[in-house]
């Protein structure tokens, strides 16, 4: 295990994780980006993108609304990619898809645990604010910056420690578990991984569902399917033009319908 690289990507993951809720929310923390970066640093971009894209699709419907704390998809993508890439390096003859699924099974609880850690962190924030509140009320406004920085620091240090612990201490245990798995379980991991992208697509379908949308999905799916098999390459311009035309038609239809209803 290359410790310097593990330190580097853990640091990058910690910084990107902050974007998921604490700073900005610019969408640079999306799982496919952290998966890709992790894969790139460890020498297997492909694995990172595959895992990142699946994580992104499955947990796409997890908005941080109000006091709800969703699982950390950045963590799921990061830990799963690290495990997958290292496993593929060590066990070169192993089934790639089974390794991907096995790594996801390690990453998912870690993501949920980071979500739980976020709840503890927000409880700690209450105590920090109470500690400095009187000083702020006395117009010592620099304490506002201190609270903000302290909160970010605590979040970062908790995540960084957890990432290192999971990767450095957990890896040898995970390797032993994987090597002891019977053939049937390894095959079942491949079957599960075969289904994973479809789970993500179904989650998205459910999220975007409307009667008109579902009809259009049905109408467009089969011509697109035939088109992809008829042509040898995916034609992006077709894809874009079709989307623009449909957006225009639907938008006009909705506006027309609305205006007619208001009249």
């Amino acid at each position, binding site marked *: 295990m290359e410790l310097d690289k593990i330190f580097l990507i853990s640091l990058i993951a910690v910084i990107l994780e902050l974007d998921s809720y604490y700073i900005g929310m610019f969408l640079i923390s999306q799982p496919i980006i952290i998966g890709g970066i992790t894969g790139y640093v460890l020498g297997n971009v492909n694995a990172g993108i595959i895992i990142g894209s699946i994580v992104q699709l499955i947990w796409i419907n997890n*908005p941080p609304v109000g006091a709800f704390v969703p699982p950390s998809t950045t963590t799921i993508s990061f830990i799963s990619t690290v495990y997958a890439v290292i496993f593929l390096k060590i066990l070169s003859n192993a089934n790639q898809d089974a390794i991907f699924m096995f790594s996801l099974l390690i990453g998912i609880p870690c993501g949920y645990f980071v979500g739980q850690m976020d709840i503890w962190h927000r409880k700690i924030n209450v105590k920090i604010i109470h500690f400095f509140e009187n000083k702020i009320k006395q117009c010592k406004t620099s304490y506002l910056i201190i609270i*903000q920085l302290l909160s970010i620091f605590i979040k970062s240090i908790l995540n960084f420690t957890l990432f290192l612990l999971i990767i450095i201490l957990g890896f040898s245990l995970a390797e032993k578990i994987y090597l002891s798995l019977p053939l049937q379980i390894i095959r079942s*991991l491949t079957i599960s991984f075969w289904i994973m992208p479809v789970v993500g697509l179904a989650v998205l379908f459910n999220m975007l569902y409307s009667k008109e949308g579902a009809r259009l999905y049905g109408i467009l799916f089969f011509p697109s399917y035939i088109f992809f098999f008829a042509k040898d390459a995916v034609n992006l311009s077709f894809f874009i033009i079709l989307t623009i035309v449909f957006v225009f038609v639907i938008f006009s239809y909705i506006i027309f319908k609305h205006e007619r209803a208001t009249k």
Partner: protein
Amino acid sequence: MKKVNIFSLLISGLKLNFLQASWNFERLQNIGFLFSIINILKIIYKNNIEGLKVAIKRHIEFFNTHIFFSSAVLGMVSRLEEDIDNSDPEKKSKEIENAKIGVMGPLAAIGDSIFWSAIKPFALLSGIGYTYLMGFSADSLIWGAITSIIIYNLPRIFVKYYLLIESYYNYQKLFFLLQNIRFQHLIKVIKITGMILLSIITAGYLYKKDLNLISLRPIDNFLLIIIFILIIMALKRKTAISSILISIIVLSIIISYIIG
């Protein structure tokens, strides 16, 4: 003459990126909001330290709204802090708090439905769609990521800074402005466009995928379509995603042992 200039407003707008940095279960985004507005309060109460203390006490209380729409509250509150007379601090506090509470809820609801339910999934779908269709390479990742970041951040920046400036200079028209935007239509259009994209991406994925459990690809794809429909049915019944994942793993193990 207004004390707060556009430069100070923009600095506060930038500081709103840290609105949730010290989110807490007691008063939610209070410190983030105070941190963002403090430079404006210091300008308004430049020679009035007691006024500043009262203003700080006002804004250290509960605050919660959508992060991108919080700029509207910031702009409106800044204007109210500047406009309302300081002779009766209690009345001033009451007026500002009422105005804040009045807009926080609706803005949070609008922001959640526009950004979290429509724009964000659409942006992520576009990025992932690009990567799925163009192949899992570093190049496609970069372009896919750029696509989703642009689709998400353009409306985000526009909404944030437009509302910030508009709510400061025309705060009385804020409700009128929000009522006039056809949010429901916008969300519907984004969702339908997303659905169209999704249908193309699903078809493209079935064409491009490398992993086939059954060597005959049409049958393999047909099986996946059936599983897709079953998962949608489960999701429609409000089944948690974790339960679906566990069921898939258990079923896969059973199938694997049956195959032998």
